[in-house]
C-alpha cells in the first residue's frame, strides 16, 4: 500500500501542488531570473486572451464531438449486436480492434486516408460516388480539419463505449424484460422504460470517463495537424504544450491554464453526475 502512495505523491500530488503554486508566478524557463510572484496576473491575462478562449472552444468541440459520436455509435452498435447468432463473440472482438491501434498509427492512417491528393482514398471514393467534385484538403482546411480529427478519434475510441454499453445490456435483469413483454410493451417502450433506466449508471460513468480522457487526448491532433491550420484544431492541451515547451516556455501562464482545466473538469463532472445520476434507492 505504502509504495503506491509514495509514487502517487511523487508523480501526481507534488506536480499538482507545484502547478497550482506556479500559476501565481511569472516564470519563464528561458529566463534566468527565476520565479517572481505576480498574484492573479496570469489569471487576468488568461481570461482576457482570445487565444485561450479559442482553445477552450476547440476543446469543447473536439471533446463534445467525440464523446457524443462515440456514445451514439457505441450504444447503437451494442443494441444491434445484442441478439443470439453464431459467431457473436468473434464479431464483438473484431469491433474492438480499433481501440488497440496505437494513436500515432491512427494519425498516420488518417493522414493517408484523408490525403488531399490523387491517392487519398477518401477523396477518390467520394469523387467516384459523385459526392464531391474536386479533391478536398481535409486536414489542411480550417473548417474540415476538426471534423476529420473528430471522426478519426471516434474510430479509435468508440469500442470502449461499445463494450461498456454491451456489458450494461447484459446486466439488465432478464425478468424485467420478460415481464414487460408479457405486459405487451413495444420495443420503444421497453427501451425507455427498462433499458435506459437500468443503463443509467453505466452510461453516466462511461460518458464522464470518456469526456475526461478526451480532454487530455492530444496525440492524434499533435501528430496530424500540430493544432493547425491557423489554430483550427488547437485544443487546450495542444495550447499548453506549445506555451510550456516551445518558444519562451512560459511556465506560469501554462500552469494557470492547467489549473483552469482541472477546476473546470471538477465542476463539470460534479454537475453532470448530480444532474443525470439515478438516486440510489435505499
Amino acid at each position, binding site marked *: 500500500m505504502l*509504495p*503506491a*502512495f509514495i*509514487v502517487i505523491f511523487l*508523480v*501526481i500530488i*507534488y*506536480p499538482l501542488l*507545484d*502547478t497550482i503554486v*506556479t500559476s501565481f508566478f511569472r516564470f519563464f524557463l528561458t529566463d534566468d531570473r527565476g520565479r517572481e510572484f505576480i498574484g492573479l496576473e496570469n489569471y487576468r491575462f488568461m481570461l482576457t486572451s482570445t487565444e485561450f478562449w479559442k482553445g477552450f472552444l476547440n476543446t469543447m468541440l473536439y471533446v463534445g464531438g467525440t464523446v457524443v459520436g462515440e456514445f451514439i455509435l457505441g450504444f447503437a*452498435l451494442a443494441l*444491434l*449486436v445484442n*441478439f443470439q*447468432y453464431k459467431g457473436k463473440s468473434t464479431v464483438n472482438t*473484431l*469491433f*474492438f*480492434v*480499433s481501440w*488497440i*491501434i*496505437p*494513436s*500515432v*498509427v491512427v494519425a*498516420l*492512417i488518417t493522414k*493517408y*486516408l484523408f490525403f488531399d491528393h*490523387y*491517392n487519398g*482514398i477518401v477523396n*477518390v471514393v467520394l469523387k*467516384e460516388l459523385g459526392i464531391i467534385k474536386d479533391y478536398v484538403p481535409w486536414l489542411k482546411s480550417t473548417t474540415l480539419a476538426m471534423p476529420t480529427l473528430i471522426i478519426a478519434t471516434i*474510430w479509435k475510441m468508440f469500442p470502449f463505449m461499445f*463494450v*461498456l454499453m454491451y456489458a*450494461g445490456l447484459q446486466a439488465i435483469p432478464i425478468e424485467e424484460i420478460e415481464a414487460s413483454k408479457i405486459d405487451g410493451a413495444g420495443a420503444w417502450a421497453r427501451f425507455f422504460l427498462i433499458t435506459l433506466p437500468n443503463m443509467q*449508471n453505466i452510461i453516466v*460513468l462511461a460518458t464522464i*470517463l470518456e469526456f*475526461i*480522457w478526451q*480532454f*487530455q487526448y*492530444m*496525440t492524434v491532433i*499533435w501528430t496530424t495537424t500540430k493544432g493547425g491550420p491557423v489554430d483550427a484544431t488547437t485544443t487546450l*492541451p495542444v495550447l*499548453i*504544450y506549445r506555451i*510550456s515547451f516551445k518558444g519562451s516556455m512560459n511556465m506560469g501562464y501554462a*500552469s494557470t*491554464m*492547467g489549473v483552469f*482545466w*482541472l477546476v473546470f473538469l471538477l465542476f463539470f*463532472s460534479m454537475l453532470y453526475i448530480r444532474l443525470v445520476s439515478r438516486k440510489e434507492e435505499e
Partner: protein
Amino acid sequence: MKNSARTARIIGRTFRIILIIVLLGICLLPIYWMVITSFKMQEEIFSVPPTFFPKKFTVKNYLSIIVGDISASIKFLTYFKNSIIVAISTVAVTLLLATPAAYAFSRIPFKGKKNLIYFVLVSQMLPIVIILIPIYRSFLKLSLVSTYPGLVLSYMVFTLPFSIWILKGYFDGIPRELDNAAKVDGCTRMQTMIKVILPNVTPGLTAASIVVFIQSWDEFMISLTLMDKDSMRTLPVGIIQSFVGQFTIKWGEMMAASVITTIPVVILFMFLSTYLIGGLTAGAVKG
C-alpha cells in the same frame, strides 16, 4: 398469421446481420488499407485509380525500414527495443504497486475508501501536459531525463489509479471467507494476499497487465518530452520525429512502420481479448 410473423422475424434478423457485416467492414477498412499499402510497390501506391488488392506483393517497404537505409533502420530497431523495455517494465512496476493498494482498498476498512472511484476520476482529470513540467524539472535534478526508470515512473501518472480500480473490482469478487480461513490457518495479511488471494485473481492481473501494456505502448506526449536523446526514444515518438520527415510521402514505408508498431498489441489482443474487455467492463458495471 403465425407464418407471416415468422417471416418478419427472419427478415429482421437477416437485415440485422447484413448491417453488422457492413459496419464491421467499415470499421476494419482503415486497417486493411494500412496493411495492403505496406505491401505495395511505390508506383502502385500512387496509381490512379487505387488498387484494392496489390497487383504485385512486395516486402520492400519492410526491408527498407528494418535493414535498408542503415541509419534509419538501426534507429527503428532501437525505438522498437525501447518501447518493449518501457512497456514491459511499466506493466511490472504498475502491478507491483497497484496490487497491494487495490487489496487494501478492497479489504482494510478505513475512512473514505468508498471514494476510490472519485479518486480515480479526479486523477484522470489532471492535465498531463502540465504536470509534465514539474516532473521534467525534478527529473532533471534526479538525472532521470532520458532514462527508462524515469519514463516508467512518469507513466504511473495514468497507469496506477486505473489499475488500482480494475484490480479492486476483482478483489471484491473474492469471498472474504477465503481471507478468514487463511487467517485462522495463521497467515499474515501479506501471506494471505500472495498465497491465497492472488492465485484467484489472475484474470484481473492479466486484464490490468494488458490495459497497462496497451496504454504505455500507445503513449506519446510524455515520451516525446522526457526522452531527449534520440537513442532513447520509444516507437511512437521515433516514427513521428524521424520517419515522417524522412519519408514525407513514402506511404509504403510509413504504413509498414505502422503495421510493425501495431503487431505487438494485436498479438496480445488475439490471445487475451476476453481478459482485456472483461477488465475494462468489470469495474464499471458494478459502478
